[in-house]
């Protein structure tokens, strides 16, 4: 495995290696800081950025280097409204410039390898960074081979839209181009996956759009699962709002086994579904770097100490966000990643100072929109008790609520987004 990736990485960087090496040596702040503790963070999303910021906040002496492969970050939360024309991709796009203000060394590069024995990571631009502790927050990777006929290439024709950006715009184009009367097909993924209510938020918003623009069309959700997050609220809401949505559960034959991109169709064991507008959200696992560095187990996700988020496979490596396995039914959400990052930062700080593991407090709040004026939420608080993550309180929005209440939740969704983005990028 080591050799393979090594060779791969040499091939990738090729002739640029020499130039890259020279500049990387100078640009490697982790090396310059003699005697100081160095933490490298891989991935600048909901988890990684907050971990980097909190490490600096708790101890400005820690040398924090954040390595992110993209120049800009596109937020998935609130990206579904873009598909139906309620939002512009611009307000989902964030830059990393302000991190320097917080004393974080931001490096735009892709980590290709983690060497846990040497405590170094190496990157596509052929730089290498040493660490005392490493935080890995790469988000998810798709299991491209899980459904026959699907691939990364096919996703340009049958998009997933599960990482915000060009895929989101592709979904938008296809929705507006589809014929009135055709179905809009959403293929939901099996558990566990990023953002459990996400496919159903999308279904509602698309149905809201269809109701206005293509009233003869309906949304069909093909699902391998028999239940989903906030199910009662979604189904009641869809009914209340007069949406035309058909949900085909796993038991009813909703599991898609094959895709035919030429024919624009998806196949379950029982039936073929055809449309010019198909959104297929593939099964998922922890981001690639977690897989190739051996941080993931056979589930595809990274097992961690539930109190600190330190990997149970590699010491001094902390995995947070979508990539890790969390118990207590904490979902794979941006808010959860944010909360986990703060816990991991506290644990790293304590470990550097020879203190015991701090007592964590975990929180998640997730809003979903059914229409621009109709929001629902799930919120919970967890504590670490009797060696396990234990839910202390929480739940979903009430089944029966006024229109004002639903509208307020939609308004709070937007304000939540502003706050959590400011926490990351201001």
């Amino acid at each position: 495995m080591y050799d393979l990736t090594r060779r791969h990485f040499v091939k990738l960087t090729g002739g640029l290696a020499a130039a890259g090496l020279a500049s990387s040596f100078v640009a490697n702040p982790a090396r310059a800081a003699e005697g100081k503790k160095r933490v490298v963070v891989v991935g600048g999303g909901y988890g990684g950025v907050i971990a980097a910021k909190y490490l600096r906040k708790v101890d400005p002496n820690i040398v924090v280097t954040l390595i992110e492969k993209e120049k800009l970050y596109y937020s998935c939360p609130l990206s579904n409204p873009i598909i139906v024309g309620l939002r512009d991709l611009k307000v989902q796009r964030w830059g990393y410039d302000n991190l320097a203000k917080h004393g974080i060394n931001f490096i735009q590069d892709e980590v290709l390898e983690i060497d846990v024995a040497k405590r170094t990571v190496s990157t596509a631009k052929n730089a290498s960074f040493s660490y005392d502790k490493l935080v890995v927050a790469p988000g998810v990777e798709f299991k491209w081979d899980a459904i026959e006929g699907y691939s990364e290439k096919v996703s340009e024709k049958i998009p997933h839209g599960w990482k915000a950006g060009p895929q989101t715009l592709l979904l938008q184009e296809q929705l507006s181009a589809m014929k009135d009367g055709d179905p809009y097909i959403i293929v939901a993924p099996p558990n566990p996956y990023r953002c459990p209510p996400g496919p159903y938020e999308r279904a509602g918003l698309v149905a809201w759009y269809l109701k206005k623009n293509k009233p003869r069309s309906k949304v069909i959700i093909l699902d391998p699962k028999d239940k989903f997050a906030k199910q009662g609220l979604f189904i009641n809401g869809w009914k209340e709002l007069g949406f035309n949505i058909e949900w085909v559960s796993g038991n009813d034959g909703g599991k898609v086994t094959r895709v035919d991109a030429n024919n624009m169709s998806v196949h379950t064991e029982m039936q073929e579904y055809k449309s010019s507008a198909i959104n297929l959200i593939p099964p998922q696992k922890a981001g690639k770097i977690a897989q190739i560095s051996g941080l993931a187990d056979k589930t595809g996700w990274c097992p961690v100490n539930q109190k600190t988020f330190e990997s149970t496979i590699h010491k001094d490596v902390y995995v947070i966000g979508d990539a890790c396995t969390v118990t207590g039914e904490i979902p794979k959400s941006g808010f959860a990643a944010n909360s986990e990052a703060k816990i991991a930062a506290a644990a790293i700080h304590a470990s550097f100072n020879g203190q015991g593991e701090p007592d964590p407090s975990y929180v998640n709040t997730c809003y979903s929109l059914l229409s621009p004026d109709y929001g629902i939420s799930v919120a919970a608080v967890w504590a670490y008790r009797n060696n396990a993550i234990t839910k202390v309180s929480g739940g979903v929005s009430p089944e029966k609520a006024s229109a004002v209440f639903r509208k307020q939740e939609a308004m709070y969704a937007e304000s939540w987004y502003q706050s959590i983005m400011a926490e990351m990028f201001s």
Partner: protein
Amino acid sequence: MRKRMLVLAAVVVGGLWGGAAVAGPTSGMLSNTCDGCHGPGGVSPGPYMPSIAGMPYNFLKQMMTEFMKDERPSTIMSRIAKGYSDGEIDEIAKHFAGLKWGVNNGASVKGKSVDPDKAEKGKSLARECEKCHEDGGKKQDEDTPRMAGQWLDYLQLKLGEYKNDEKYPQPKKMKTQIDKLSVEDLEAVAHYFAGQK
């Protein structure tokens, strides 16, 4: 003043994850998750989300306790507040009371802006309010929240609730004053307080 200084000092000494008197998560650990919605350091960039940094300790504690006991209507706060013990709520209130009030900035979607005419009208209407919310809403004592520079959208939303919802918990004096004002008056009052920095 003296008391406030002491609270501040305690927070500084305790540091980000320090300060807890009891076993369990520290006050910083408990409070930093609040920032995910209420903004960095409790200063909110989202127009419907109130800033809570520097609010009076008693006020914060009372709000959280009322949410916890379902005595104050909310969307998600009652679900969240139930996740904490009385002692933990105390820590959270202390934490935010010890922070500095800040004016929100950096939001990519701005809230409604203050209309100077409405604010002017609100100024005279707010005379009664200022018996408690003194100094343009800047003064805060133990139970009175700061109003000056809070988000306009949030103030409008809440004043509307105070006016329209009979069951909304509020001091008697507050209810009397609110009842005297029309919806338009309250709108103007919100513009006035939001415009005070």
